[in-house]
């Protein structure tokens, strides 16, 4: 192999080093532009902090319940009602729900977690139904073409269901571990604290 003369290589190398040294503004965490309708719908629950609080609360509750009683009924209620609520909100142009309602649902989930209480099936389904309706009615899609609206709603719906189910599955993998019980109680107390503080904020305004 022919060896390259050092002098010939040194100049391009020097230029490359200089280019690496050239400072440029750092644009970390820039907003995602050009996000598709479906992806935008998928991200919607994650970009709404009150929804995140409810999703985490319900997911943890569901995961804990999975160990003792069935999860099929509450999840079926959630899937059906969240879909209906998303459509109703978009068609009737519901603006948004009062934050106190969303936080009240999160507070309920937090209290049940912190007290380590497993309510009977009916109240449990009622909590899931309330959450589905509140989050669905709070997530109306922006007006646009039918395709855009359907894709956004579909993304939002899938995201809501999958997030709760994912958290539930991962929590249930912990089985009956003692540390998990403690972690769930602590998480519940955090959800209560956050909900109480934000309820106070909403009352102040």
């Amino acid at each position, binding site marked *: 192999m022919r060896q390259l003369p050092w002098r010939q290589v040194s100049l391009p190398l020097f230029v490359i080093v200089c280019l690496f040294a050239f400072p440029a503004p750092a644009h970390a965490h820039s907003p995602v532009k050009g996000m598709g309708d479906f992806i935008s719908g998928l991200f919607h629950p994650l970009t709404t902090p009150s929804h995140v609080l409810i999703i985490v609360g319900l997911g943890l509750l569901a995961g804990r319940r999975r160990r003792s009683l069935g999860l099929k009924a509450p999840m079926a209620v959630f899937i059906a009602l969240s879909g209906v609520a998303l459509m109703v909100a978009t068609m009737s142009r519901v603006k948004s729900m009062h934050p106190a309602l969303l936080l009240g649902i999160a507070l309920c989930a937090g209290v049940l977690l912190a007290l380590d209480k497993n309510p009977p099936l009916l109240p449990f389904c009622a909590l899931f139904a309330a959450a589905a309706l509140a989050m669905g009615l709070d997530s109306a899609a922006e007006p646009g073409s039918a395709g855009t609206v359907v894709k956004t709603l579909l993304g939002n719906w899938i995201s809501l269901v999958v997030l709760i189910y994912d958290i539930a599955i991962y929590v249930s993998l912990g089985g009956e571990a003692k540390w998990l019980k403690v972690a769930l*109680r602590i998480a519940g107390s955090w959800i*209560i604290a956050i909900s109480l503080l934000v309820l106070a904020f*909403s009352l102040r305004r």
Partner: protein
Amino acid sequence: MPATRFIIARAKGHPARTVLCLLLLLPVTASAHTETGAIGGLLSGFKHPLTGLDHMVAMLAVGLWGAFLGPRAMWTLPVVFPVVMALGGAAGVLGMPLPAVETGIALSGVMLGLLVAFATKPPLWAAAIVVGFFGVFHGHAHGTELPGSANALAYSIGFVVSTGLLHLCGIAFGLLARWPWGKMVVRAGGGIIAAVGFAFLFGLL
């Protein structure tokens, strides 16, 4: 400027070095991590408990005492504290007055530190009342000091998570009490916390 003169002297007669030095001197603005909106609220809330030493040592003491008292207290105290703290925070947000808030915060460090230092082991309910009592003062102070422009929900999430993580740090330190030498280290830690509390109480810090 001496720095510029030094760079010019080093680069003299070496065009390559001159170019490199000039490129490194090009100033640009760094626009990463702009703290606005929900992210701003989250970061602001997360930093809040970490910026006051009096708050920080009391949070660590809660976890430390919990771990020192045994497995039940280890999760009970970090569950009780955020909930009661949030009630105090809500009172602060709503403008309800609470006398001697700063004294209460300083006393929390003194009391909790001394309880750990003297290895006091009261019944669980009594420990929960002590922790809850001081939690009100911490919450009230955080509630009244809250910046008006912050995103309330994101701020609360950051604030509660940060407080909880400080408890977990205290628990981790308190778990050293399993070993005889660790018990002494934990009690010494309690003594340091009490000393910091005294310093705040008498205005030395």
